[in-house]
């Protein structure tokens, strides 16, 4: 079983925080640059809610990447 990966494109992110609110394991936050940041990525369950709700095409979740 690999790790899940949350890829954030900071060029697209406008820091609205919708992803933060829908993440069930609360691993996303808005950073000091007003863009989304991932904390404790290892906790990610790969549900993809952040990707689905992101209005800016700024998040892609890759599930089960083997390192």
């Amino acid at each position: 079983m690999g790790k899940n990966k949350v890829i954030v494109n900071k060029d697209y992110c406008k820091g609205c925080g919708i992803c933060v609110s829908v993440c069930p394991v609360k691993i996303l936050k808005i950073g000091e640059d007003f863009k989304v940041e991932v904390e404790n990525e290892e906790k990610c369950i790969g549900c993809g809610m952040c990707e689905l709700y992101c209005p800016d095409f700024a998040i892609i979740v890759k599930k089960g990447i083997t390192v």
Partner: protein
Amino acid sequence: MYTEISLDNLRVKKLPHIWCAGCGNGIVLSAILRAIERSKIDKDKIVFVSGIGCAGRSSGYVNFNTLHTLHGRPLAFATGIKLANPDLQVIVATGDGDLAAIGGNHFIHAAKRNIDLSVIVFNNFVYGMTGGQLSPTTPEDSFTTTTPYGHIEEPMNISYLAIAAGATYVARETIGNPLMLEKYILNGLLHKGFSLIEAVSSCVTEFGRRNNLGDPAEYVKFLKDKSIPFSKVNSVESHDGIVVGEFVNIEKPEFVTSYYELVKKVAK
């Protein structure tokens, strides 16, 4: 994840888009692109038509044949495209003002013809691009820049109007449930006839700010919480919230097909 948006279908050089932070339009467009991906339609045959307003800008970001038309007229342009070349899959992205106010007549008649167009209306209750004026769907008592004392009219029910006019596929979902929204859009794309998917969206900057919905995340949650399944009320309308679901899904003769059957009969 789920159905990943193919970057090939986005004009990535045009991103980030012009929509405000937290604008629901991006969630709707994302659902449209996932639905297109799942539909397996030939991308070169897709013509993505839009009108004027925030929703109208969506055509600039998707990598198909795209046409950004005049205010209220996307259905008229789309009608010409579909009738002139029935092989094309014509998708229309429009807003509540674009479709139901200035374009209201085209909306009624396109639905009445049951012409094979897939129409997704980004309904955010307000004119966002021009700075937050009332739209046909602005809820009663809410505040906009042209209803500073509160709105005195009842809002228009776009789905209800589509049904009355003769649309053969009508569904509504909010950005609070993007997966279902995607599913309805997919159904609409695959449906032969006039399909109308009412995507209830958010406008944080112009509507939310004046109506206690200024936080994007809370706005999404609000729409989700306000949603009432169609199966529960069996009505397109409810005073308690936003009825969501698939309202109509029927087969009826489609305009362009009928037209070319007629041509076959009379062609010399």
